[in-house]
């Protein structure tokens, strides 16, 4: 059930949110948790019930291991159980996500004709597996005590974030199940959640999806692009993936808020970053935290002294694995390694204490991120190479032949975002300054708010076209 479907927005989410609010009002907290678990399992398994069983199996195994870690008094069995958990999770993830890739590489290298298993990966496998590895490690480090099975299952698989994150810390969610909030606080959170949900929907449908045609056309035949077009397509993809993924995250955060749950943020204006390391503090933040704390730091520690050289090696390995996490393809691996190299260069640069003129760091970072995203979007490495070749100056420098057919779709490509911004920007500016209590900003009458919200809803529903699938659902 996609977040952008009416089934989700008008029926499933409101029904669960209202039932949940009623149960909390009746102080039936445990029942409210059961409701979240039941609705999440229904959300998860409604399309493919067998996926629900795999998900539940993963939950039970991790819960048993976490309990064992919690109960063990000596360090050695605790460490042993942690390793059992990590190996089990990595094996589970690999069996569904990487086995075809592995078989294909073996076939390619050995010449053996291996038949690919083609097991369909359960929805959100990368996200809930990482959340559980994080949980086991935290339990081992005694940051948290293991939680009960129902809380574990609910916190791991809540429907707002099961499909594509953010990657949550299980105890940070489960401890919210017993938090007491008065009705006003819950209502305030729900109102903010509703606005967040609307913003995410508009970001996805009006902004992200408007750019899909340009990106798909450009990446389908990179050899036909002029240099100018190739750069345009690359930058447009940079925008599309941001609006798509941050739109999804807004909808996930907003949905959780409607249920009275706060989940981690994933984005903090990543495209204003002045360096690659700052970019990763602003982009897919829940994954960045995982990579930093559960991959980079342990690898660095394992090497002994934390020297610059060791740090660069650790970051290269961590980012290579980060790329592989996104998908079983060389394009993702190379994308991760390229980011690892950039982060390594950034570490050397920072150590040299040299400064770039204002704006140059931002331009270099944005250009690098855009170029790296070509690898992320390309269907294969040869295709990425073709795209990079198109970006280099060649005979067709400023032509617009390849993208000309899109000019007839210009209204849907350009008008939607422009209309949206025309409505949203003045409104948002007034809202922000009103919230800050600025004297010059007049209070917005309710009637004006109704008109502005209605225009946003109209544009999202009727000018948005058919929503496409979220990019990060494939991971």
């Amino acid at each position, binding site marked *: 059930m996609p977040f952008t*479907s*009416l*089934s989700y927005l008008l*029926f499933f989410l409101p029904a669960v949110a209202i039932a949940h609010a009623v149960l909390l009002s009746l102080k039936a907290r445990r029942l409210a948790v059961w409701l979240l678990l039941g609705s999440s399992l229904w959300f998860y398994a409604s399309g493919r019930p067998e996926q629900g069983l795999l998900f539940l199996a993963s939950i039970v195994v991790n819960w048993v291991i976490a309990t064992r870690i919690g109960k063990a008094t000596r360090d050695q069995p605790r460490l042993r159980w942690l390793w059992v958990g990590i190996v089990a999770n990595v094996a589970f993830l690999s069996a569904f996500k990487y086995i075809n890739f592995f078989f294909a590489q073996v076939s390619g290298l050995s010449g053996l004709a291996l038949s690919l298993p083609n097991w369909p990966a359960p929805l959100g496998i990368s996200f809930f597996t990482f959340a559980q590895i994080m949980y086991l490690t935290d339990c081992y480090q005694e940051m948290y005590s293991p939680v009960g099975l129902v809380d574990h299952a609910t916190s791991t698989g809540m429907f707002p974030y099961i499909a594509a994150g953010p990657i949550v810390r299980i105890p940070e969610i489960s401890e919210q199940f017993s938090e007491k909030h008065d009705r006003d606080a819950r209502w305030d959170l729900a109102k903010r959640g509703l606005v967040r949900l609307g913003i995410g929907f508009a970001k996805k449908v009006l902004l992200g999806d408007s750019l899909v045609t340009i990106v798909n056309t450009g990446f389908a035949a990179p050899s036909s692009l002029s240099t100018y077009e190739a750069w345009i397509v690359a930058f447009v993809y940079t925008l599309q993936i941001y609006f798509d993924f941050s739109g999804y995250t807004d909808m996930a955060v907003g949905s959780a808020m409607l249920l009275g749950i706060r989940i981690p943020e994933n984005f903090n204006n990543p495209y204003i970053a002045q360096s690659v390391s700052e970019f990763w503090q602003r982009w897919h933040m829940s994954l960045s935290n995982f990579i930093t704390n559960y991959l980079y730091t342990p690898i660095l520690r394992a090497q002994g002294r934390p020297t610059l050289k060791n740090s660069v090696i650790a970051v290269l390995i961590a980012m290579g694995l980060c790329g592989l996490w996104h998908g079983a393809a060389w394009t993702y691996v190379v994308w991760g390694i390229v980011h690892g190299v950039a982060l390594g260069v950034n570490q050397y640069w920072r150590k040299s204490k040299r400064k770039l003129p204002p704006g140059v760091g931002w331009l270099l970072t944005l250009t690098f991120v855009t170029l790296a995203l070509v690898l992320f979007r390309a269907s294969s490495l040869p295709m990425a190479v073709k795209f990079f070749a198109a970006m280099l100056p060649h005979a067709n420098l400023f032509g617009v032949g390849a993208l000309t057919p899109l000019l007839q779709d210009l*209204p849907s490509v350009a008008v939607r975002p422009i209309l949206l911004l025309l409505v949203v920007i003045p409104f948002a500016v007034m809202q922000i300054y009103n919230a800050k209590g600025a004297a010059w900003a007049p209070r917005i009458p*309710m*009637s004006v708010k*109704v*008109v502005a*919200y*209605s*225009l946003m*809803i*109209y*544009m999202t*529903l*009727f*000018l948005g076209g*058919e929503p496409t699938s979220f990019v990060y659902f494939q991971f």
Partner: protein
Amino acid sequence: MKILPALRVLGYAVLALATFEIAARVEDYVRHGAPLLDAYSIDSVFRPGPFGKEGKPGAHYLKWSMNSLGYRGPELKPGRTNIVTFGSSETFGLYESPDHEYPRQLENFLNSKRPGAYNVVNIAIPSEPTGNNRYLARALKQLSPRYVVIYPSPALAIGAKASSCNKTFPRQTDHQQIGDWFRLPGRLGPYLKRNAPKPLLKSFYDFDIWRSTHGGHVMRRVPDVSIAAYSADVLCAIRTVDAYGATPIVVTHVTYFGDHLEPGDDMMMAAWRKFFPYLAAPGFLDLERRANAAEMEAAKSAGAKIVRADGVIPRGAGNFADFVHFTDHGAALMAVIVGDAILADPYPTPKTGHA
């Protein structure tokens, strides 16, 4: 005391609806040049005529454009053989993207084989009976076609008691319904149809059918008299075409369901039944079978060429946007089937019509 807040909420709801309506009108104006204050619906391209509803010359609504003769499609090019397509909404085209309705694809197909040889004139009017021979005769006199492709719609036989051949259709008044004045329902309906959860949509259809038939008799099959009327209508159209010296080509009807219902078809069947609630679901496929048999019998008796589309165009969503109307792909298949029949005609000599 609580009346004031309730009135305020009502006021905001009205304001929101008014905003939607104004936004829809501005969008229509900017994108389609539609009038800001006048009614704007599919009925804008039709007008009442001496033989029932007819196309309004030069009118357009969204993707539907009428030429200067009042037929859907571009202006006729001089010096080409005219081919007329006659039928109901399936031929007129509802769901296909612009210029992908089957008559337009037929023209493209034929001209790809014999460049610049044919005009295909789409004279179909939605819901018009096949037996409206006076309307057909006027078009034939105007266009002098070499071929007339007749694609009748069996559902129009439901409730028919006699042939409409030679019937005088009362001149309809050009009245507009209240729904034509508002643009929002026209947007909301298709949106909900596309996006609402299927079980909910099915429940709405079932409720609508129940409401229409409550206390009334639901037929299990269409009576023979209606099939006979349908057959007579087809025969009437064939004879009219013959009378104007053109070659009639009768195409059998084809639906989303093909010749059988499959699990999961209940939603689409309910959507169809909503228009003809007094006929039970099994009656629709029975009607299709009997109507096609009667149509072929009529064509055979009149010596007209028969093209079988049933059993040739595969069932399902790939070819049908709803129960009977084509997708672009379905329309393309239809165009090829009909086009092949025309190209296989032993007398392919182009006959120039009036352009």
